[in-house]
């Protein structure tokens, strides 16, 4: 009985080790696994992994826990992988462990959210925080006609990406749109219901707010639904969100625009870049990277640029499915 169990265990272990893959091992980590945004990035990543015949390890925290990302990277260093690609939750915290990975000869990439530049080889950038802020501010300004009040629904108050976007947003407002006022920032903790409730309250506490900007993907449908249910046709919603979540509200007209980028392509490009990095084809001095079906992708210094932020509207949203 005991022997049979041990045998089964051993067989299972051998099976787990993978069978005869000759490609590189690429370890990729989202900020947290429970988010549909990252689930869509993953589909692109797996597509690239299959094409390139590399072994893709996809893991990360299931909740936004700042310490867990470090621990996962540590495990990958111990395990031994060829490249690590991280969407960074905490830029300062993760830099230590990423430097350690580089010191061990592992290639390090960040994607979606960056860390300190000396802690990684390249950053696969879909859009700079400044670019995102400018696009969002532009939409708010357009909807407000150049002056008025708007409010923001963010992820959690400690979310690093959102805080960086907010910082840039305030700078852009000060520089370009002095007549537009950001009245309040409310957290959603990545919960749609919470975004919904915060927006409902917001609309009543600040009736002068005419635009609600939701900068976390679960917050977009939450805020939009709240505005729709309130019957306030004078209020419009914009923000950062997935086209599939945004579609019904875009069609309704409640949601004016949703800004994002092609998350599948982002995942795809990250794996392509990680592989190129591990193979040595992506190195300092290179200004372009051939990334499978994406063709030639621009490389600027230490950033691999996917493109600029893309705005989904009711006219183009049907072309996308993620």
């Amino acid at each position: 009985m005991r022997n049979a169990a041990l045998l089964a265990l051993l067989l299972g272990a051998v099976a787990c080790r993978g069978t005869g893959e000759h490609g590189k091992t690429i370890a990729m980590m989202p900020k947290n696994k429970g988010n549909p945004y990252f689930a869509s990035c993953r589909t692109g990543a797996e597509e690239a992994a299959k094409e390139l015949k590399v072994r893709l390890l996809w893991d990360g925290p299931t909740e936004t826990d700042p310490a867990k990302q470090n621990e996962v990277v540590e495990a990958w260093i111990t395990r031994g992988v060829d490249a690590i690609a991280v969407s960074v939750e905490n830029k300062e915290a993760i830099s230590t462990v990423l430097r350690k990975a580089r010191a061990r000869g592992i290639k390090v990439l960040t994607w979606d959210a960056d860390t300190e530049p000396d802690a990684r080889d390249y950053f696969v950038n879909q859009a700079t925080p400044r670019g995102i802020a400018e696009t969002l501010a532009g939409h708010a300004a357009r909807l407000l006609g150049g002056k008025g009040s708007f409010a923001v629904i963010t992820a959690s108050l400690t979310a690093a990406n959102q805080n960086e976007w907010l910082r840039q947003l305030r700078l852009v407002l000060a520089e370009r749109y002095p007549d537009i006022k950001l009245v309040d920032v409310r957290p959603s903790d990545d919960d749609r219901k919470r975004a919904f409730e915060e927006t409902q309250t917001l609309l009543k506490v600040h009736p002068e707010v005419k635009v609600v900007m939701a900068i976390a993907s679960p917050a977009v449908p939450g805020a939009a639904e709240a505005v729709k249910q309130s019957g306030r046709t004078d209020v419009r919603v914009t923000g950062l969100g997935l086209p599939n979540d945004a579609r019904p509200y875009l069609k309704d007209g409640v949601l004016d625009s949703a800004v994002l980028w092609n998350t599948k392509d982002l995942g795809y490009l990250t794996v392509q870049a990680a592989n190129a990095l591990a193979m040595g084809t992506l190195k300092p001095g290179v200004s372009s990277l051939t990334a499978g079906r994406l063709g030639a992708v621009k490389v600027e210094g230490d950033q691999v640029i996917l493109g600029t932020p893309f705005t989904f509207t009711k006219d183009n949203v049907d072309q996308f499915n993620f």
Partner: protein
Amino acid sequence: MSVAATHRRELSVGAAYGALLVALALFAPAFYQRANLRDVLVGAAPVLVAAVGMTLVILARQIDISIGSQFAICAVVAGTLAKAGLAMPIAAAGALATGAALGALNGVLVAGFGLPAIVVTLATMVGLRETLRWVTEGVWVRDLPPGFQWMGLGQDAGRFAIPGLALLVWALVAWGMRHLAGGRAVYATGSNAEVARLTGVRPRRVVFGVFVAMGALTGLAALLSAIQFIDVQTNSGVGFELRVIAAVVVGGTSIAGGRGSLVGSLLGVLLLATAGPALTFLGSQAYWDRALQGLIILVAVAADAFGSATRLKARP
């Protein structure tokens, strides 16, 4: 004992709630817009339904910290069944049945095997949520039939029916607790299981029953919450158990079992459901919300203990 003494806790919660309402009337009368009152009640409805179940659980001297995970699963079940083309009443029944089943799991472990409730429900909380995450990978249940939102009743009727149904459930269970033998059995089991057994109550059955009831009510809460939207988030209900337990405890139900009432729980739910938006109306910054809510809980329980002559050193 005078009426005031037996219901001292409910009176003090009621007084606290009253004070909050007065503060709002003075400093933020905008709170009293009809639309806002309605929205607060609709938002409070799922919490109330779950608080009814949690009151029973805590009265029976148990606890259930897994309801957040149950909530998430029941919501996904409702959405998935609706998406598969089943009629809404069936999807709703599915959500409730799932909740009852998950509650039964807790019940079997606690009543059947005699394992401590707090640790059992800690295990089921973690196990269920991680399993759900693994299976769904965070992808929402989308493209639901139009009859899903508001169960097809439309926005106005729906927003009236949801708190109405919650209140109805509350009233039914409150009546049952007072007038049915089952209700007294819950109080008896929570006060002293041994004595209860000697008077003919079956404590194990009661404990199993309250966990199943908790699960079914959580399923209902998940349904009431899910039908306010057009799709189902798969990672909902995080922190739900804390909100519900806080409401029940603030409402005066003793964690030691055997003491408390559904009236108190209703007041607790209302107090905490109002406190959130009230802070926004009163101009508090979002980043002080959590501290203030923690303070409210502590003040509520400390005030009670301060005034109380007897000290209850109870078990968790």
